């Protein structure tokens, strides 16, 4: 059956229950791929291009911002979204102002995630 290719979303979070929750909520809407660390995410991206990366900020080793910076360098087409409970962290505010990331607060809301992803994809497509 030929269907329109679904948006492929990569979720990166070291908290496994969170990843499973995202997968459960969005499995029908998106083609969800998951990673529990930055290294795992970058490894996956080399073999499987994605449209959107939703990355948790607070992670050991590489935090969300570092992962998204790496994404900007190596996979500039990927739409970058940071999930965080620390929206007012100075580093995050700076990254947001610099246009590096779009920030979604945690706990996330299904509709808000969907709306944001749609808008960001539309903007990316408009830029070509």
């Amino acid at each position, binding site marked *: 059956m030929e269907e329109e290719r679904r948006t492929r979303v990569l979720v990166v979070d070291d908290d496994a*229950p969170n990843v499973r929750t995202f997968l*459960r909520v969005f499995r029908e809407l998106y083609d969800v791929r998951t990673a529990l660390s930055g290294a795992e995410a970058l490894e996956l991206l080399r073999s499987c291009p994605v449209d959107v990366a939703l990355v948790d900020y607070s992670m050991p080793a590489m935090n969300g911002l570092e992962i998204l910076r790496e994404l900007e360098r190596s996979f500039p087409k990927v739409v970058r979204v940071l999930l965080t409970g620390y929206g007012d962290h100075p580093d995050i505010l700076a990254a947001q102002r610099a246009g590096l990331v779009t920030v979604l607060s945690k706990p996330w809301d299904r509709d808000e995630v969907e709306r944001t992803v749609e808008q960001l994809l539309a903007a990316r497509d408009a830029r070509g």
Partner: protein
Amino acid sequence: MPACVDPPGAWVAECLERERREGIAAALCAGLLIPAWVPLDMLMEPARARQFAVLRLVGAAFSVAAFASLRRARTRAAVRATNAAHFVMTGLCVAVMLPQVEHFQAYVVGYSLFLWGAGALFTWPVWLAAGTALAHLSLLSLLILAAPARPHLDDLLSGGFYLVTTAAMVLGFVGARRRTLRRAFQASMELAQRHRELVTALESLRDTQARLVASEKQSALGRLLAGLSHEINNPVNVLQNNLDPVREHVGALVELARHVEGARPGELPALQARCRELDLAFVAEDLADATGIMRSAVERIRQVHRDLRAFIRGGEPESVVSDLNEGLQATLALIGRRLPAGIRIDADLGRLRPVRMQPGQLNQVWHNLVQNAVDAVGAGGVITVRSREIGSEVEVSVADTGPGVPAEVLPRLFEPFFTTKGVGVGTGLGLATCYQIVERHAGRIAVDPTCEAGARFVVRLPAA
């Protein structure tokens, strides 16, 4: 900082200085005035003038020697010995003249005036010295008036001379004492002024201290809350976002159950088809997974709550007698669950005698020390928290495998606002607050100087 004030020491030093100055004044007066007696002796006792002149000059020489010696004297014993020697020797010079003189009354009165001067030097109060001088003057007048013959010109001359020289000596002493009094007055004024300044400084310090403590509390609280917010955020996210999928599954199952309830025998194939459509095995598995992670999310929140309660237990202002290991465990649980990857905390908590403490405050100390250690060590770092009994004390140590405390930082480590973490990262109040809290518990906090690798902070508290 004002210089250390030592009132008893200052008083002793001032008394010594007074004795020295009075001795110098007396030696100076005697050294200058004794030779002035030589012409008087020539007038009154011409037969023995030469012998008396030698004695006067010897007395003056003793005075000059005493003057030189007193200027260098720095100890009480040296000052007193010189003063005593000076008056014994000059007194002796006059005493050997007495049996030979013709104007005996005049010489005796002069000699007694001299003795009064010597006595006044040592310990006599001013009123006693002045009273004695007055008595001597009266005696002199009386002796002159009571003499059978009319007073001779040389008697009057010698009396006048004694009066003038005595007045000169008295003036010298009074000058020395006035100087002492003025200095004492100035010193007491300075002390009063310094006291006022200290009181003002103390008030402002107390005020600053209160503000510091409040600001450190906010900073520590801020860190704690940031950690807790992260701790709670993830499970809340799981609970919030699994609710809808669970509700959808349950809704579909309830709808199916209603169909079953009202179904007629012939409708079984249709119901079975509906079940296949739903993919019951998938629903069952998905529901089990969703409710499983929701249950563990609730457990995570409950655990955070339990740890937090144990941690802030000492919001109670009253101190309690308790085992401080409980607070240590609560703190380690709180920090342990948001520990950066690659860092390990080893706890070795021994059996402890109870300690009188405010648990919340001590927990703040443990939290600061362990958090500092976490900040100091990199990946692969190990933090060792140990509690044990040493004699009548309880010791808690927090050691880490970080870079250690540089020697130049050590003296300022517990100073408020001193931080090596960079602007905006550390407030520089954590260790200062620890110091204050431990001190309030009659304990001590220090960095182990023998620790060669990393840093080891040691807190000792008296057992209850």
